[in-house]
């Protein structure tokens, strides 16, 4: 079991401002986030008002008012314990800082219709940025890897969420790194299986290989648009599982313990930038356990430059990720083989290293976390996606490289974050997949759960396995087998709801 270190060049501190930012800034400015405005009257606090999100300014809101009612809105803001930041009479809105909707000094915000009659809409203040290109000073000119995976276009859609837990099963992460600290929650950093404590950092940053876990974590989640260092893929809650020592070596049974810990603590994505030439029973069982809990498991294909994918990447539960190079080929060191699922950039990848520093590294270790980061973005955009859907969206939207279609070198191709997001949205739509092969029984309808499933079912009578009518109008259906009678046909069909 070895980490996949090939090359590490420590980076100098930034000496000059970001290159190219002024030119980019001349391009049109645009709002980079979805609008989440709420029309009044309302009766309760939409969760969007209070939930953290990197595109919203915490606690700051824009309140639209009806002509001539600015004073009424200003007094309402004061009553909720807030303060006016500025008023734009011409546009018809005020900007105000407000305490969380559910925790104002007087309890909840007063949303009674009579008190809020002057309010047209209320929405969080959305940060405006130059389209897609983050202000992290190293993004241009170093982070080609994110750009060729269409990160800038993906970030126009979604920036991530602390609700998505991503586990880095590695040699430990410097969770105090200033570009990573925002992704960790105190008291839930992960676990150190080497030191058997709750501080999953490398012990001795002086050992050259100890940078590895921090570098991987930075690729996934280094804070974007903080004017500092590099941009990672997604805001996430990171969990560090330290299963390898500072030199990057360990055993697969400890890796298995790390996988299981992550899966059992709510990780939705597990990244393993580590490889072994042979599999082991505990690792296989741990990966199967993670899969059974719906965890997206991503692993590096290995750095021997040979036609043999290492373990755990070669296991069916894992997305095996090979490395593409800056000259748009398979990196010379990248393993390949029939299990290769996708590729992502893995040469001259700039990311975080312990001690608040930055460094470039090469390896399939750097490719796997790109895919883990994209998976996290997909889940942040749509929490309801299951692991198969995340995997299908990533695979089916990849940019084909090498031989046409899936091939042993590149798998499905280079991951395209923007198209993966688009496809994931389509996958989630409810679809009658099929009727089963003709038989004497009525056919089976197979449905994927989706946003509109409930409204589809509202037009049908659904029964559970014991013949009881299921109230689909009020409760959404869990995975399982049901019987359905649609209004269009009177026969009863078996309905299998997949999740």
């Amino acid at each position: 079991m070895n980490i996949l270190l090939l090359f590490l060049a420590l980076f100098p501190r930034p000496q000059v401002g970001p290159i190219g930012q002024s030119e980019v800034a001349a391009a049109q400015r645009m709002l980079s986030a979805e609008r989440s405005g709420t029309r009044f009257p309302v009766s309760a606090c939409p969760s969007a008002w209070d939930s953290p999100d990197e595109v919203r300014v915490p606690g700051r809101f824009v309140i639209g008012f009806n002509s001539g009612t600015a004073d009424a809105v200003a007094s309402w803001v004061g009553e909720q314990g807030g303060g006016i930041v500025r008023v734009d009479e011409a546009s018809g809105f005020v900007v105000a800082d407000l305490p969380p909707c559910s925790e104002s000094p007087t309890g909840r915000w007063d949303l009674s219709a009579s008190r809020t009659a002057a309010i047209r809409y209320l929405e969080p203040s959305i940060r405006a940025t130059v389209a897609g290109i983050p202000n992290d000073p190293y993004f241009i000119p170093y982070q080609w890897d994110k750009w060729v995976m269409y990160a800038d276009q993906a970030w126009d859609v979604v920036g991530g969420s602390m609700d998505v837990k991503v586990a880095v099963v590695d040699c430990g992460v410097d969770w105090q790194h200033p570009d990573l600290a925002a992704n960790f929650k105190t008291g839930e950093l992960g676990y150190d299986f080497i030191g058997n404590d709750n501080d999953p950092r490398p012990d001795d940053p002086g050992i050259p290989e100890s940078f590895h876990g921090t570098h991987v974590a930075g690729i996934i989640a280094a804070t974007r648009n903080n004017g500092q260092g590099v941009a990672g893929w997604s805001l996430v809650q990171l969990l560090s599982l330290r299963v390898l020592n500072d030199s990057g070596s360990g055993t697969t049974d400890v890796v298995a313990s790390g996988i299981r810990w992550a899966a059992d603590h709510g990780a939705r994505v597990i990244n393993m930038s580590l490889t072994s030439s042979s599999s082991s029973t505990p690792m296989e069982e741990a990966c199967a356990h993670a899969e059974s809990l719906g965890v997206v498991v991503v692993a590096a294909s290995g750095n021997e430059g040979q036609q043999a994918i290492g373990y755990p990447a070669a296991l069916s539960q894992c997305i095996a990720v090979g490395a593409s190079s800056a000259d748009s080929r398979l990196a010379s060191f990248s393993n390949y083989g029939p299990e290769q699922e996708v590729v992502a950039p893995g040469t001259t990848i700039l990311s975080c290293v312990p001690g608040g520093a930055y460094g470039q590294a090469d390896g399939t270790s750097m490719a796997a976390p790109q895919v883990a980061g994209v998976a996290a973005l997909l889940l942040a955009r749509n929490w309801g996606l299951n692991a198969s859907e995340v995997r299908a969206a990533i695979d089916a939207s990849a940019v084909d490289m090498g031989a046409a279609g899936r091939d042993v070198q590149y798998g499905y191709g280079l991951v395209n974050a923007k198209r993966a997001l688009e496809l994931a949205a389509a996958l989630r739509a409810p679809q009658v997949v099929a009727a089963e092969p003709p038989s004497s029984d009525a056919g089976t309808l197979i449905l994927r759960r989706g946003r509109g499933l409930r409204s589809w079912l509202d037009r049908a009578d659904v029964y559970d396995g014991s013949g009881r009518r299921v109230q689909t109008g009020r409760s959404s259906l869990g995975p399982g087998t049901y019987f359905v009678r649609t209004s269009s046909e009177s026969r009863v069909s078996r309905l299998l709801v997949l999740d």
Partner: protein
Amino acid sequence: MVAVALAAMAAFAGCDWLLGFDTTPPTCQVVSPPDSAAVSGSVPIAATASDSVGVEWVEFYADGALVGVDSATPYSSSWDASALAEGTWHALSCIAYDLAQNRGYSDTIAVVIAAAGQRSVYHGELSIAAGGREAVQFDAQDGDTLAGDAQVVAGGSLSSLLWLNNANYQKYLANQAYTALFRQDGFQQLSMRRPVASGGSYFLVFVNSGGSVVKCWARFVLE
């Protein structure tokens, strides 16, 4: 008495079909593609089937419609998914028949149609020396569209991006008059999208006639 003994022997020997007693259906399983796989074009399907006596044939179904029959191992067929919309789910299953015409139904697996082919022309970075150029060669077919972005990240701006067919690329190399299918001069950022009129070998040429190295990111696809 003899008949009973024969029947008992036949059943014991697994030859009960001879006497019409075989009521055990075969088992059948789709083994490829795997469940939830992304597929496109002509999709090979493979199945395993077994029976206490013998499997006579295996039928393959896609979305409930028969797409193929195979009577020899390895049981396989293919399914044309080329006309199906990307991102839609489809069901694959099989039915095995034994000699007594018992049917064994497989579980149904779901596959998703991969997004319409996007082939990489180049996804990486280019360092173009002062007074130099870098060419990316690719093959395209009639009906393709070339689409992509270039972003200069160091060294000022790029003098030109040219899209040339092979004949004009050779003229360009020989300093002869040439015709570009697309040309943009003096830029730091560009997005382009052009149909490919005929199949053949093409070149994207990044030209730097300035005095310092220009570093440029490029992501170009054929759709």
